[in-house]
């Protein structure tokens, strides 16, 4: 198939296709981050991804797989530790976020034969997107989207009112776990685009921008996906023309859209 080869043979197109795939899942999950106030939680999972990178090199397995598994392990650990209530949740998250990041950095420095592009992991390396990465992104996105559609009503209901959902027979605990697993997968996948330090931005900013225009939860998800896609395309274009780093350019574009919509809507309301 020459056309597909032509498209996938070009690094810019690969980056764009990969970025759009991530925006597709970052939209709905970003909405849940905003609705359930999980921004700090997302940040913690993202930071732990660097530990996953180190583990991936150490065990000589696929780095993407190692990241996903580390995030899953940390998500489960957080749920368990959160139950004991010995520490406030934000303290706990603060400890784990930065400790896992630090452990990851230290561990990588102990592996001198591994030459790692640290900036790539911290801020994203969108333009180095390989075909293998694309397969990961679209495979992960497909799994997450199918799960989201299947579990949508229960997830939304337990976000609105946990106890009400429970009385109505929604398996709240299992859904929370499912949501965390989806997060882990999306973080493993989105890391390629914007890196450990900027993932939360890609989740939150499009969702927050969509909030003011949205009439219902599903509408908000749709808008967040569209805004995320515009941010990815805009950021890549910016990066192409001004030779700026791709990941941060995506976040800057998203932020500009956020500022623009908020000031426009404020003007309309006055």
């Amino acid at each position, binding site marked *: 198939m020459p056309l597909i080869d032509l498209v996938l043979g070009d690094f810019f197109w690969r980056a764009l296709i990969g970025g759009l795939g991530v925006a597709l899942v970052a939209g709905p999950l970003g909405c849940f981050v905003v609705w359930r106030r999980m921004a700090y939680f997302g940040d913690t999972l993202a930071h732990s991804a660097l530990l996953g990178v180190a583990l991936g090199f150490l065990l000589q397995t696929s780095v993407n797989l190692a990241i996903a598994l580390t995030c899953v392990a940390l998500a489960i650990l957080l749920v368990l530790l959160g139950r004991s209530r010995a520490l406030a949740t934000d303290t706990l998250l603060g400890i784990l976020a930065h400790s896992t990041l630090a452990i990851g950095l230290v561990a990588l420095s102990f592996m001198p034969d591994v030459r790692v592009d640290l900036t790539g992991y911290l801020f994203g390396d969108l333009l180095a997107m390989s075909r293998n990465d694309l397969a990961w992104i679209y495979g992960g996105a497909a799994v997450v989207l199918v799960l989201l559609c299947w579990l949508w009503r229960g997830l939304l209901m337990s976000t609105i*009112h946990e*106890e009400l959902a429970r009385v*109505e027979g929604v398996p709240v605990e299992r859904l929370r776990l499912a949501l965390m697993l989806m997060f882990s997968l999306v973080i493993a996948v989105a890391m390629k685009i914007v890196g450990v330090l900027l993932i939360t931005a890609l989740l939150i900013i499009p969702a927050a921008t969509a909030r003011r225009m949205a009439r219902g939860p599903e509408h908000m998800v749709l808008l967040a996906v569209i805004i995320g896609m515009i941010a990815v395309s805009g950021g890549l274009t910016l990066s192409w023309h001004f030779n700026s780093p791709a990941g941060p350019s995506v976040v800057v574009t998203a932020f500009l859209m956020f500022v623009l919509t908020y000031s426009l809507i404020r003007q309309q309301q006055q």
Partner: protein
Amino acid sequence: MTDTLVTLDAVTVAFNGLPVVDRVNLSVSRGDIVTVIGPNGAGKTTLIKAITGIQRLTSGSIWRKPGLSIGYVPQHLHLQPTLPLTVQRFMSLTGQPDPDCRQALSKTGIEHLFKASIHRLSGGEMQRLLIARALVRKPELLVLDEPAQGVDINGQASLYDLIRSLRDTLQCGVIMISHDLHLVMAATDKVICLNQHICCSGYPEDISHDPAFIEVFGQAIAESLAIYQHHHNHSHDLHGDVVGSDAGGHSHTAHSGECQSGEHHNHAAH
């Protein structure tokens, strides 16, 4: 006995070894309105949660009529401002078709708000929405956790009227928690006074003379309820010599204020 909906047998719920609900026996039948009253920390909400099945029991057992459908009205719905939600979407999350949802809303008197955003509802409208949402699931047992909280005094009275008329039209059983002693006494069939264990229970007229009730709520409130009863019965010409209705109204609010501090003393002593 065929009309019994739920029966609690020596239900005990303990947190860290301390019983919050202690060996409670009660049953609710079709057409009953049972109101649970008691001081703060008496385990009222825990008891309600046990009945709905979201609170695990430490010991004892609960029998529910096979296939019992429960409509739960939580204390309040604290919705994240970041989640856009209309009344229509909130109702449709029950999985019921729109016409049924509209009908339930018209029963609670807020059909005109069908398209409105939930964030714009007043306290009373919100409670009516939560009741409508419970109704659309066609419950045999309606469980309400302080349905009149955050509603002004006129709204409270009409809310209790609504609950009573729903019981009459739907022939369901109702169990609710309330703090509004005076309104409860008028609107209920059976009162259960809870202070971890059931102190006393019975018909509203009898219970205010019960020594156990006076011990928990203090002499002042028992007397103020007696005044209220006089006032209430006056229209039936059973008692002749009653203080002016305005004065009665004032004195009972003053008394209930006093009693609340009395409650705390009582509680601290335990």
